[in-house]
């Protein structure tokens, strides 16, 4: 190394770089623990920030709101809020216009376990595969043709008492999110918020999926892994 190069290297410590922010702490909660428990704590943090953001009229700095994105799953954003939005009792699910699966705007994933759905509906870029009837839903698989997070696409609003857990799913881009316990509110584009029961959200390639109505996490994961 030449003298000039040594001089430049020595100069590095004298450069007035601003103090680096502690980015790791922004996405860290608690100490090390089992993988799923750690994910669970993280989502609680993210949703708490979401609650604050709502209370403050979304007046949150960009860098903080970005924290939410890491805990979004594909096109779905998850927030904890102090109070659920108003929901109307639903006697018949409104899922959009019925379509032939071949007319979907993207190639639909179908479950080997569930077989053909009883109905396929489209609302914008959101496709719903219904098992049962709109009045008596057995299972509902929602497919969104975008796994990049955009807050407008879909939003889940979870209340306290709802258990949220990250779970590994074979074939998913990153872990899926399992929501169970007290009903949570879900709002999809163009539709009102409604209450939802146990739900699994995950991604498969460029598609974000949600499965509503599975009786247990094990059943939900088995169905999720059967989709292809």
């Amino acid at each position, binding site marked *: 190394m030449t003298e000039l190069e040594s001089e430049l290297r020595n100069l590095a410590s004298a450069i007035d770089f601003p103090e680096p922010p502690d980015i790791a702490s922004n996405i860290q909660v608690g100490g090390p623990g089992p*993988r799923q428990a750690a994910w669970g704590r993280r989502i609680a943090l993210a949703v708490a920030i979401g609650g604050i953001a709502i209370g403050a009229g979304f007046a949150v700095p960009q860098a903080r709101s*970005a924290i939410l994105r890491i805990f979004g799953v594909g096109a779905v954003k998850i927030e904890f809020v102090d109070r659920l939005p108003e929901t109307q009792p639903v006697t018949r699910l409104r899922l959009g216009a019925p379509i032939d699966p071949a007319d979907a705007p993207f190639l639909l994933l179908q479950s080997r376990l569930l077989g053909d759905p009883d109905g396929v509906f489209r609302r914008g870029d959101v496709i719903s595969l219904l098992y049962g009837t709109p009045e008596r839903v057995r299972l509902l698989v929602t497919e969104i043709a975008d796994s990049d997070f955009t807050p407008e696409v879909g939003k889940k609003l979870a209340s306290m008492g709802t258990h949220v857990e990250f779970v590994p799913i074979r074939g998913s881009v990153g872990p899926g999110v399992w929501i169970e316990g007290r009903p949570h509110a879900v709002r999809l584009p163009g539709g009102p918020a409604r209450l939802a029961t146990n739900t699994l959200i995950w991604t498969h390639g460029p598609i974000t999926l949600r499965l509503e109505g599975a009786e247990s996490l094990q059943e939900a994961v088995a169905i999720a892994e059967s989709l292809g």
Partner: protein
Amino acid sequence: MGRPLDDGELVTRAQQGDVAAYEELVRMHQATAFRTAYLLAGSTADAEEAAHDAFLKAFHALRRFRRGTPFRPWLLAIVANEARNRRRSAGRRHALALRAAAEIRPGDAAPSPEAAVLSRERQDLVLAAVNRLSEEHRLVVACRYFLDLSEAETASVLGIRTGTVKSRLSRALEHLREEVPGA
């Protein structure tokens, strides 16, 4: 106590969903990521956001990361991209001029007052010469010597080949030798 995990091991764990492993990666690289972003974005706020968002994007893109390849150049390429986007959005045409810190940092060896003045004058002289370099030369010097990035990492950050890093660096050093007496 076990040995600390290296980047490759942490990446493998993070790809399997181990968030603690990813946090460790963030902790290990956040300072370099931030300084790289600062160099390119030209403002502290933009650099913070760029580094932060880059770590989030890297997390989402981990599945596309090829195991066995070095993590830091890949991460820094994402950081650099975020930083450049912010600089473009802010309409800043020039990268920032580097400055020497006003005071001696804690932990620095305390020189005699005369030596300190001479040393400071020399630092200012060299830094002024670096700041007069063209932007492409200044950035390559800053990446290699001020951020201590390897040639491959510098290439990733600047979006050029390692051969170009070498040739730019060589020309930048030539300019500096012409500008700084005794260099």
